[in-house]
């Protein structure tokens, strides 16, 4: 078999994926499992109505060319529990046609006399899509020989075949078309789009639904869009693409890039992160680290549609579905990409001259003699002694301009009727921006999703996914490390002329970032497994089935921190010697920690699906339980024998520490759903969930979470006639959902053990018991009532598709400690109590447009817009604070800040106003908000906007010209703001350049005169430091070229795709300028967001026997 040859070729190229080959060759088999049995009765039915009935009951889809078929004749048909083939056979004799069943496609063809079997003919033809656009690169295969060609740039093909053979014409994204070649030698093939948006199957909680019948607010993203950006963090690939999904990338550190994800903004003062469900299993966590190529689809449940997840879904749910096997052609796909990354914005710190000027200006302002006048003059004259008075760009000394990132991805997808498989692997290697040591992140992902049809009515699936994520980083936390770069004085050297590392007055950061002073390693290892079955019980009751799964997820997280002595030199001017200060840099010490977690989910579900003429019903009831057991151990040793033996045994006993503890969680759930529709016109869905969570006391443990949604497809009404509006649907939903994400056991009084007081002459540390939080016996989950009103419409099919939604949510019983109204003298450590109320409302709009300009050129435009505004209705706060400080009526995450009113230009202005006692000209003029004649905390105000954007939007453009494609994706946000405020010794030169110097030189300066962190005009955060986080950026750009020439087939290659892409390419506009506008770090001490330029290649090998 040629396939095997292909595989071995690949094997030698990409050794590390050999495992897929073994599995693959053992399961490549063909079989014909009978399809499910169906029943229906129709009186006086036309062929079309019978087809519609079968399509509704089964996954089968008919394909036929109207014209020759008799669509007028009517028959009474009655099929009871018959296989599809029997039915079609019967229909073929009734209506007179030939047919072919391939997978779920039933190809109806004109009945023809049998051909002469041995006649060799040449068939030529054109392949078009449904808009009559020629399709270059379509594959035409002679099924009897498995020889094939592809259509050329003009969609033209030519193939020599035996008469009577079947040609299969396929093209990615289109339904495969098969035709028996008899006498025709010129063909015109029209391929139909596979999942035209209208009939897309959408993953919803515990099942799938056809898009037209969905009544909730469910947004989806398909695999093609997900892989467009070649980033390692999956959430980066989602940001801006789905309406209602608000994702902010707060940093760019490999392996721990932070993203903040909310659905429709923040609706609670508690945990506002959505529930992430991966392949039906909640609590799998860290979906960002999944291999983007493994994702089939992402669904975002934004309204009551998430109610099926009950007590955990108040913040909405994100459902990730991984790819599964498909019967038919198996495709081996190999993807590799090489990227270079750089910060979207790098900090430019004050240089030596600026820094010394700044310090002296501070001194002069404080009435002290300046220290550096001579040096400043030297710098200006260029006569500074560079050994002693250098000018170091510490950021450039510390970080690389570009850092590489490599990804390899391999997947194999295919199967037969009996066994379907999807196998994949990913290798990712991301370097950190720091110079020197190999800090960064390496990730290995493997996945095997198998579906096995064990018996006619029994299917099982085995999904296994493994991941190892290894992160090596500095001993300092990222914030500390970046701060360490910031606080260097620019006049100090990083290295002497001879390359030796210089000691600096604030601690040279290079020994921390090149690994010479030690490292932190964390290895995240996890195995997710899921064993599921599906048993068709139609022998008991027609339409009944039982399905279930057990998922065992095991996580192991190992951390290691090693400190070691390092070389650092001091130049002694007297002796002219470089003195190594290694002895002052400590000993080899080790800290280790391991966490393990075992998560077990059991799920069992009875499904019942039935159609009665125009009524269809799809229901289930289910039971699910979840348990988690975790444990951690940690230990440390000092004075290791050598840093090369980084294990506990090599350390000393004195000063050793060790610790360990456990944790557990559990949930039990009963739930069910009823979906009903009448002629796919009137739609209704009811869900009910009864959830128990161990986070709450026995009498508060269970809660009932109902959801209702209704839909009306107006275009299905006989009275609705419009040429333009091809689809119009109105939807409404309401549901009650919960949020149980708070600390466990707050209803119990317990005592924590901690190292405590030291007694005895020889100083023995004892243990102590510290009372935990004061128990709250009444604690229970938060409750969200969600309302959603939506309209879906299509104008001229794919020409314009849109979704418009209005939502309102009221969250009550929000869990928060009463720490603003309970006096401190009570001595409580306050537990969470169900006290808060927040409402959240907004609008979403999604519009998509596809168009074909010429036969060679098509384009698409997509856009999404979300506005979400949250408002606190009740929160625990002191009753007598002024209105302008009340959190009630303001967003959940808020900025409380002094109002600045420019800068003081002279002493007279200070004397005439209310100011801080140390105010001087050039300081910030604060507004005495309450007019009490002094500036204090009471003068701060709460701002309307916070760092969570109220408006987010995305715009995507796709262009296809022959085999060349270009995709652009713009992401934007507005109505968000953060304070950016430098701190510590050195800082962005921006603040220097825009500082106040004097009322003559800089009357319009933005920032105060040279300030030190202790100045009250600096310490009291005011609106001077505020910047809007609004931006519009070109988030992704991709150029691709698809090569699918016939000659490639000789090598078993179906296609080659080359792509050049950029991620976070540039800001069309933004206001922050000195940092990435998505950062909310005040000080700039964070790992910057990354711009990524990527070259990638994708090779597809196809099973061509």
């Amino acid at each position, binding site marked *: 078999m040629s396939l095997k040859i292909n595989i071995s070729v690949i094997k030698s190229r990409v050794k590390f994926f050999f495992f897929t080959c073994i599995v693959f060759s053992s399961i490549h088999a063909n079989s014909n499992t009978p399809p499910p049995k169906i029943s229906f009765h129709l009186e006086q039915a036309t062929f079309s109505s019978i087809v519609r009935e079968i399509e509704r009951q089964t996954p089968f889809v008919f394909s036929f060319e109207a014209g020759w078929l008799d669509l007028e004749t009517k028959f009474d048909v009655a099929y009871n529990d018959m296989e599809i083939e029997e039915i079609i056979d019967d229909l073929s004799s009734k209506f007179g046609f030939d047919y072919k069943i391939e997978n779920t496609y039933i190809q109806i063809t004109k009945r023809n006399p049998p051909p002469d079997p041995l006649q060799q003919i040449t068939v030529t033809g054109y392949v078009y899509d449904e808009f009559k656009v020629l399709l270059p690169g379509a594959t035409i295969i002679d099924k009897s020989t498995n020889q094939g060609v592809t259509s050329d740039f003009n969609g033209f093909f030519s193939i020599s075949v035996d008469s009577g053979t079947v040609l299969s014409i396929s093209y990615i994204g289109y339904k495969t078309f098969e035709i028996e070649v008899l006498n025709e030698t010129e063909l015109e093939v029209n391929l139909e789009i596979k999942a035209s948006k209208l009939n897309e199957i959408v993953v919803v909680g515990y099942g799938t639904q056809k898009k037209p019948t969905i009544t909730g607010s469910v947004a989806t993203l398909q695999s093609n869009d997900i892989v467009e950006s070649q980033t390692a963090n999956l959430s980066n690939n989602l940001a801006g693409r789905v309406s209602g999904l608000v994702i902010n990338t707060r940093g760019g550190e490999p392996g721990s890039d932070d993203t903040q994800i909310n659905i429709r903004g923040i609706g609670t003062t508690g945990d506002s992160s959505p529930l992430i469900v991966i392949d039906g299993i909640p609590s799998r966590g860290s979906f960002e680290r999944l291999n983007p190529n493994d994702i089939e689809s992402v669904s975002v449940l934004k309204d009551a549609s998430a109610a099926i997840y009950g007590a955990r879904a108040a913040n909405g749910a994100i459902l990730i579905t991984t790819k599964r096997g498909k019967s038919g052609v198996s495709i081996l796909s190999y993807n590799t990409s090489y990227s270079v990354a750089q910060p979207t914005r790098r900090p430019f710190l004050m240089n030596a001259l600026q820094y010394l000027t700044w310090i002296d200006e501070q001194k002069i302002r404080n009435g002290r003699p300046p*220290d550096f006048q001579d040096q400043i003059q030297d710098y200006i004259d260029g006569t500074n002694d560079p050994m002693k008075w250098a000018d170091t760009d510490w950021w450039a000394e510390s970080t690389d301009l570009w850092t590489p990132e490599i990804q390899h991805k391999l997947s194999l997808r295919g199967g037969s009727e009996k066994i379907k498989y999807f196998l994949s692997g990913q290798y990712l290697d991301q370097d950190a921006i720091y110079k020197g040591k190999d800090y960064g992140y390496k990730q290995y992902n493997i996945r095997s999703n198998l579906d096995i049809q064990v*018996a006619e009515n029994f299917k099982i699936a085995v999904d296994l996914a493994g991941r190892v994520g290894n992160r090596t980083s500095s001993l300092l936390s990222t914030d500390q490390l970046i701060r360490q770069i910031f606080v260097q004085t620019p006049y100090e050297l990083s290295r002497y002329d001879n390359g030796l590392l210089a000691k600096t*007055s604030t601690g040279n950061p290079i020994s921390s970032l090149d690994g010479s002073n030690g490292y932190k390693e964390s290895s995240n290892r996890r195995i997710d497994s899921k064993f599921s079955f599906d048993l068709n019980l139609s*022998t008991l009751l027609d339409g009944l089935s039982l399905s*279930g799964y057990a998922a065992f997820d095991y996580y192991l997280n190992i951390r290691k921190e090693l400190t070691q002595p390092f070389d650092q030199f001091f130049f002694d001017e007297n002796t002219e010697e470089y003195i190594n200060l290694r*002895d002052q840099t*400590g000993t080899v010490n080790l800290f280790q920690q391991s966490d393990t977690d075992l998560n077990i989910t059991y799920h*069992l579900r009875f499904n019942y699906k039935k159609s009665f003429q125009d009524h269809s019903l799809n229901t289930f009831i289910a*039971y699910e*339980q979840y*348990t988690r057991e975790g444990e951690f151990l940690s230990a440390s040793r*000092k004075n290791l024998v050598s840093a090369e033996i980084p294990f506990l045994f090599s350390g000393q006993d004195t*000063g050793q520490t060790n610790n360990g503890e456990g*944790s*557990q969680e*559990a949930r039990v759930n009963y739930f069910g759903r009823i979906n009903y529709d009448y002629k796919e016109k009137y739609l209704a869905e009811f869900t009910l969930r009864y959830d*128990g*969570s*161990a986070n709450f006391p026995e009498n508060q*443990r269970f809660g009932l979470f109902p959801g209702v949604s209704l839909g009306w497809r107006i275009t299905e009404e006989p009275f609705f006639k419009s040429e333009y509006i091809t689809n119009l649907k109105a939807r409404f939903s309401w549901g009650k959902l919960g949020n149980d994400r708070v600390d466990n*056991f707050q209803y*119990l*009084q*317990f*005592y*924590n*053990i*901690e190292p*405590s*007081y*030291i*007694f*005895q*002459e020889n*100083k023995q*540390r*004892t243990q*102590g*018991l*510290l*009372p*935990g939080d*004061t*128990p709250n016996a009444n604690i229970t989950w938060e409750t969200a009532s969600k309302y959603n009103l939506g309209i879906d419409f299509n104008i001229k099919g794919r020409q314009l598709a849109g979704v418009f939604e209005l939502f309102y949510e009221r969250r009550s019983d929000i869990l928060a400690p009463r*720490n*603003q109204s*309970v*006096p*401190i*003298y*009570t*001595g*409580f450590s306050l*537990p969470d*109590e169900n006290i808060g109320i927040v409402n959240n409302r907004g609008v979403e709009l999604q519009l998509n447009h596809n168009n074909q300009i010429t036969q060679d050129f098509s384009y698409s435009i997509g856009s999404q817009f979300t506005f979400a505004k949250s408002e606190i209705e009740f929160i625990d706060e002191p009753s007598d604070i002024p209105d302008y400080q009340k959190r009630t009526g303001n967003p959940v995450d808020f900025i409380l800040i002094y109002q600045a009113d420019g800068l003081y230009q002279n002493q007279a202005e200070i004397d005439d106003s209310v100011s801080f*006692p140390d105010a001087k000209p050039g300081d910030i003029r604060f507004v005495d908000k309450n007019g009490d004649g*002094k500036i*204090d*905390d009471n003068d701060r105000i709460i701002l309307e906007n916070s760092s969570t954007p109220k408006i987010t939007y995305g715009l995507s453009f796709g262009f296809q010209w022959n085999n060349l494609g270009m995709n652009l994706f713009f992401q934007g946000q507005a109505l968000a703001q953060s304070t950016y405020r430098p701190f510590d010794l050195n800082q962005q030169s921006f603040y220097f350049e825009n500082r106040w110097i004097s009322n003559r030189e800089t009357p319009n300066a933005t920032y105060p005169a040279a300030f030190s962190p*202790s100045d009250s005009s600096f310490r009291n955060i005011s609106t001077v430091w505020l910047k809007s986080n609004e931006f519009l950026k070109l988030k992704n750009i991709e150029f691709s070229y698809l090569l699918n020439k016939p000659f490639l087939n000789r090598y078993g290659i179906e296609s080659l795709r080359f792509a050049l892409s950029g991620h976070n390419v540039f800001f069309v506009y933004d206001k922050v300028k000195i940092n990435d506008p998505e950062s909310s770090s005040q000080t700039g001490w964070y790992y910057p967001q990354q711009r990524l330029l990527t070259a990638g290649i994708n090779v597809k090998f196809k099973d061509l026997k």
Partner: protein
Amino acid sequence: MKTTFYILLIFILSTTVACENDILNLTPLDAVSEGAVWDDLDLVNLYVNARYNELPHGFSKWAGGLRFTGITDESYHQHEQPHLRKHTNGGLTSDNLFFFNGFWFDAYEAIRNNTILLEQTETSELDADKISQFRAEARYLRAYFYAELISRYGGVPLIESTFQLEDDFSLERARYEDVVAFIIKELDLAIPDLLDRNKAVGEQFGRLTKGAGLALKARTLLYAASPLNNQQNSTEKWSEVALACEALFERNEYSLSGDYSGLFLNPSDPEVIFFKQFIDEFGEETSNSPEGYYQYTGGHRIDEWRFPNGSGGWVSENPTQNFIDQYETLSGEIPVLGYTGSDDNLQPILNPAATDYDPARPYDNRDPRFAFSVYHDEAIFKGREIEMWNPGKDSRDPSVDFWWNGSVLSYGIRKSLDESWSFESNFGSQQPWIYMRLSEFYLTYAEAQYHLGREDLARDYVNRIRARQGVNMPPIDASGLALLDKIKHERKIELAFEGNRWYDARRWRDAEIDFSQSVIGLEVTKTATAKSYRFYVEETRSYPENHYVWPLPIQEILRSNLEQNPGY
């Protein structure tokens, strides 16, 4: 096959449902549950250990939780000056106490935790002796926090039993006198059950003793009898102070140390009454940002903070020149009476009586406690000479490594430093914090006897301290107001940098004057042949009357009905 499946599935279904209750009934695996604690003497003991651990100590970071040398006339905190400045220039408000606000939070939490023990062990059936001791210790500790609270804030809410979540929390501030009465009542209850000093050894070493009980009683009564809190100058209050001191002295458990410099490193010294020990850890400062206060837990690094720059330290607090001048010469005279001239070049007014003072050798012929308490230019520290001159190793010349750790005023605090510490050390500092030592109570007794008219007794107790081994300063013979000044002066010198000054100057109502003095600094210039000294004003200070008590934290004012102190 089908039947087998059904049976299997029904089996799975029934087993999973059957254990639902077990699934949800979990207990914490990282803590001890309430039921276990109070029925187990060992666990009660652990509970008490953690109560001891809640005691704040004077080595807290920067200016810290308990001791306040940087906001008195003793010293100038060169790193935290901007934060402390509101204390020294009259700018205190209810929302800017910063480091110091945390005590209100910590104290009431500790009060609650100690009260929990008293409530839970009220009817305990465990070993009666041990339980009585634990209860006495909890009473003491609770009293200690109240004593500290009223010293800062005046009257505070007095809480004797724990609140529950559903309670009405509204309370008024108790009067200062009522809290004092409560403290004395509690100490009287506790003292009999506390250990004798000779029992506080071995495993019990470090536990509270009867002596510590009497000492806290005497200190509390002294503050209550002092002018700030005893406007009528009731002598009865002074006799209570004297009685408490006598009860302490009569126990004959403590005696003055012969090693004034070493006693601060030695918790077993006969002078030490109560202390907190440290090993092997740095302290950890946490900022409770929503509340805006700082907490400091664990060990300390006082050596690093107070060592001279040339020995790897930060010289955080610089004794002021004004305070240096307070150290007598060996003849018992204060050498410098004040300064005249321009702020950047002050001329000292020399005391003609101090004939043994040479302005060119200002550190010679001084009270021995001077060299034990302060390091200065030319002092020998860790075997080397301190260099305060520019660009000496310990100076602030910009060419010096870590020049910002050079002393601003050219002095550093030496008292209680452990010179064996080195900055390469991976460990925190090890010396104990001493809450109370005998000489404080000799001086307290002298002050009480002065107010009771027994000047001879007052002089006797002052002179005992001056005559202690290794100090041997000449006796005082003043009487009347001059004697009171001598008592105050002795207290200032003897207890310098131990944190008493802030309490003493306020209770005497001297702070308005003493804490308003400008901070005078010294600049040393070295030439090949000689050194010269320039005195200058580093900072001006003021101390308005409302500063005698601190404002209650804004957070508490907002959450309660408590009345704010006047002037805030």
